[in-house]
């Protein structure tokens, strides 16, 4: 399905991703296709000296905010909101991929959240990502409460917090959810923009309802609602209200230099799906058919495939071998219907009276659910049922949070798996690494390399003084053992041998390290570079 995953060209924006140059393909025909950069997310970072992504955005927004006029009218809902709105002070620790044995820099920020039923607090995932400590404050209570993350969904930017102290929920009123608000109807946004201690409210109207890239993970697209109320850092996670009900969670927007008065909220279908998904105690993520499709709008193409002139059907143009449709769907299949819904030739379906992308049908389902597809294969109509599961290779291209960087250090050589966060940390431009990353799914690089392991750094020492030129090479084998994962590296280097011959992809010359030399240098390198731990193979972070 033309999965709501965003291709590279639409999403990379120079302003926000210095490390990933925009590859805006010049259009030979002067087709001016405007593709907006991803919106920025709205937690206010208080750590101004750390020029992290979040901090830059915060500054950008701080300036933008000064020119926004104050809201003129406080809706009546204000009183009820006071019993529910939560100010979340976050202390987070960001993984440092360049010095992966260090625990990472500590930053702090402020976001919003609100009480929902079941004595829980709902907020954005990006407000509490990488959190080490969460301090919650209520509007009418001087006390600060300690919270922990119960569930976090990075793919739809939502999280649920729990608070141990039962007093916290005294005098609070959980907010109820409404539906999708009408275009042009008025909504109010509550939160703590620019970090203030007191609740702030802005109002605006619903401008557009559409699929939108969720910047937090960068690879996911879901339904989102665009509003023109002023949304600023610190609004993140706050409720957007209409007629006393929550119609969305404020989460991202644009700085003034990209677009004016464009803010986004997560609508209730997405929130509802998240809450249902976690109701069994585990968040299973969004599911994906893991196929791509091609619209069948060309008359000759329709006739060649044996289709009537009825504007129905899309052609399957790739099936990811790691996805749940592998073996069920084939390239060249025409998808005519999904569950009970006919699929139009532009990949839209009618859902509850609305024309929406067919992906929305899958969006609403959960792990293990069936999707019934009506398929034209070799001019025969057949039914195919796919049991939904997530395709693991996709996560490699998403931003990573709440993980400890994995690595192996051997003879001063640092081996790490490639991920988006890793590439951003290193600002890596190497063409081969970029290709392996960007075409990981399209060219099924993952079949040979479930993990792309690269020699990311050389800590200079006499034993590796000639090895600097191997930096950024992708590992192929060690002493004849194929390297597919970081564990393979650790295992191969654990095997006793006089010398370790490491081969890198596309590099004709082997990298040779003699065991005796490595052993002799081991303590010296650890001391000199303050290496706290020589390898980390598991990415779990334990926060109590």
């Amino acid at each position: 399905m033309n999965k709501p995953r965003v291709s590279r060209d639409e999403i990379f924006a120079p302003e926000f991703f210095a490390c990933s140059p925009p590859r805006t393909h010049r259009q030979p025909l002067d087709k001016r296709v405007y593709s907006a950069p991803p919106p920025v997310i709205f937690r206010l970072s208080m750590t101004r000296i750390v020029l992290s992504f979040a901090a830059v955005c915060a500054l950008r927004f701080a300036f933008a905010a000064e020119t926004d006029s104050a809201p003129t009218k406080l809706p009546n809902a204000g009183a009820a909101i006071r019993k529910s709105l939560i100010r979340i002070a976050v202390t987070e620790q960001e993984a440092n991929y360049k010095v992966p044995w260090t625990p990472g820099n500590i930053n702090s920020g402020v976001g919003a959240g609100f009480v929902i039923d079941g004595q829980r607090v709902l907020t954005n995932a990006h407000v509490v990502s990488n959190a080490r400590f969460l301090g919650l404050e209520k509007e009418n209570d001087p006390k600060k409460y300690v919270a922990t993350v119960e569930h976090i969904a990075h793919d739809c930017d939502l999280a649920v917090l729990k608070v141990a102290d039962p007093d916290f929920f005294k005098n609070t009123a959980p907010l109820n959810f409404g539906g999708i608000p009408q275009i042009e109807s008025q909504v109010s946004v509550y939160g703590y923009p620019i970090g203030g201690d007191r609740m702030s409210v802005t109002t605006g109207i619903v401008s557009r309802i559409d699929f939108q890239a969720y910047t937090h993970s960068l690879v996911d697209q879901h339904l989102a609602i665009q509003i023109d109320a002023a949304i600023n850092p610190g609004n993140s996670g706050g409720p957007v209200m209409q007629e006393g009900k929550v119609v969305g969670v404020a989460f991202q927007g644009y700085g003034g230099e990209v677009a004016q008065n464009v803010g986004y909220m997560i609508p209730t279908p997405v929130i509802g799906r998240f809450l249902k998904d976690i109701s069994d105690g585990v968040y299973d993520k969004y599911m994906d058919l893991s196929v791509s499709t091609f619209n069948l709008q060309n008359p000759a193409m329709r006739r060649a495939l044996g289709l009537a002139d009825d504007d129905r059907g899309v052609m399957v143009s790739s099936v990811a071998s790691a996805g749940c449709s592998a073996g069920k769907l084939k390239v060249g299949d025409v998808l005519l219907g999904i569950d009970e819904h006919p699929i139009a030739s532009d990949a839209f379906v009618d859902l509850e009276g609305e024309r929406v992308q067919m992906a929305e049908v899958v969006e609403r389902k959960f792990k293990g659910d069936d999707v019934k597809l009506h398929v034209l294969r070799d001019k025969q109509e057949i039914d195919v049922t796919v049991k939904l599961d997530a395709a693991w290779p996709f996560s490699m291209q998403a931003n990573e949070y709440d993980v400890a960087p994995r690595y192996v250090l051997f003879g001063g050589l640092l081996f790490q798996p490639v991920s988006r966060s890793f590439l951003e940390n290193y600002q890596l431009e190497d063409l081969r690494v970029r290709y392996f990353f960007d075409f990981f799914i399209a060219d099924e690089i993952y079949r040979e390399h479930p993990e792309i392991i690269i020699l990311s750094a050389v800590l200079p020492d006499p034993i590796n003084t000639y090895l600097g030129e191997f930096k950024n090479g992708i590992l192929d084998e060690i002493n004849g053992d194929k390297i597919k994962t970081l564990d393979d590296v650790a295992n191969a280097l654990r095997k006793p041998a006089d010398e370790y011959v490491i081969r890198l992809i596309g590099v004709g010359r082997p990298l040779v390290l003699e065991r005796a030399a490595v052993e002799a240098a081991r303590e010296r390198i650890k001391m000199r570079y303050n290496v706290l731990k020589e390898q980390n193979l598991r990415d779990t972070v334990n926060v109590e």
Partner: protein
Amino acid sequence: MRNATLLVCAWLSAAACFAAPPAKAVKEQHISIVRVNATNQAWDFFHPWSKHAPVSRRALGAVLAGDHVLVTAELVANANYLELEKAESGERMPAHVEVVDYEANLALLKPDSADFLRDMKPLEVKDAAVGDRVAVWQLEATGALLITDALLTTVEVTRYPIDDTALLTYRLTSSLQYREGSFTVPVVKNGSLVGLLMRYDTRTQNVDVIPAPVIDHFLHDAASKHYGGFPRAGVLFAPMRDPQLRRHAGLGPETSGGVFLTQVQKGSAAEQAGMRVGDVLLAIGDKAIDQDGNYLDKLYGKISLVHLIASKNDGEKVSFKILRDHAPQTLPVTLIHRVAEDYVIEPYTIDRPPKYYVIGGLVLQELSRQYLKEWGEYLKKAPERFVYYDRYQTEIFKDARKKLVVLSQVLPSASTVGYEELNYLVVTKINDVPLTRVDDVARAVANSVNGFHKIEFEENPRVIYLDAKQTAEDEKLLMRNYGLPAISRLGALSAE
């Protein structure tokens, strides 16, 4: 008279001139350089039926024996019109390119009327050495000679403008003044030509010069019946300084030289001679190769083995001494020059129009670096897959005779409804005919299947169809609406 003084400088050695310029009137005929006016018009690879706007440049050329003028190849690349102009009299004469080598960045021009240069004294080509003081010749607007002193600091192998060519270069230090028309500037010592200026960095004041040995090789080749060009072995190598690597390869502590072969190109001289990745190259002919890939040259001292190979002639035999599986071997290698057309993705396409075929409205072309260069900073801006294919082509494509046919863009037409967004896709087959060059498209579309043209791509959307009849009908409309002079431009009937 100032002009006269400067002319003397040209006549005498530059060094002498700076010491004590003798004020002696000298006749015009002593100037051995002419102005060269070139109008170039490159093909537009985004619109392969069109050319870019013409660009005119003024440059200098060195007059050589045989009524020839030597300039850089860059000057005459895609030239529509060339003209020689005498510096003082302003007399002009159309000229043409007799021999050009874009890799060596040299071209030999001849005036349309042979006696045009008869009153000029041709320059001889002579070698220079590190430490020599040389003179960079430019022309003032008046036609007077402007001479700048320069010191030859380094002789080394550097990259030439055609990306993957590396040849001998003189590096000078000089603070050059900018003069209009200072392109292809001659560098002179004692009245002899030692090189042509290739690039000048105003910040570091480094001047890179195409040196006399490269010019001599070019002229020697140009005078022969067959222009062979500068040969290559077709290998990439890595230094072997690391003692751990040396022990691994079986080189004992008593040895010091040798380089590790990291790539042996398909169809190259080295491959034909049986060389393999992993061989350690110890010597070429009687020259020992050190651990960095240098040999001891009697003129230049330590210099890259690339020069040792390039200084030979196309077809010349040389013996390569290698170490394989810890045992020495000697392999006879017949050096060859590999032409641009032999690459899957051609490194340059100059003076040749790009081939294309428009079917329906789908524009099909061969992927070439010249096409990628239309993006400007193509490493960052061109489609990443294409950049990757170009960079690693020897590794990825085993059949060097094949070209990649790509759908570069769609000219929307009735045939291409719903295909408007397709671009930058490698086309693998049309009507089940595998494509190895764009010329194959003509053959493939002659046999439509059930009234359709089936077009297959390497990636999404994998396959599309066109109505064969409609496609034929659309041809005239496409040509009219988009102003195409022809629906296709293919090469001469393929070589086989």
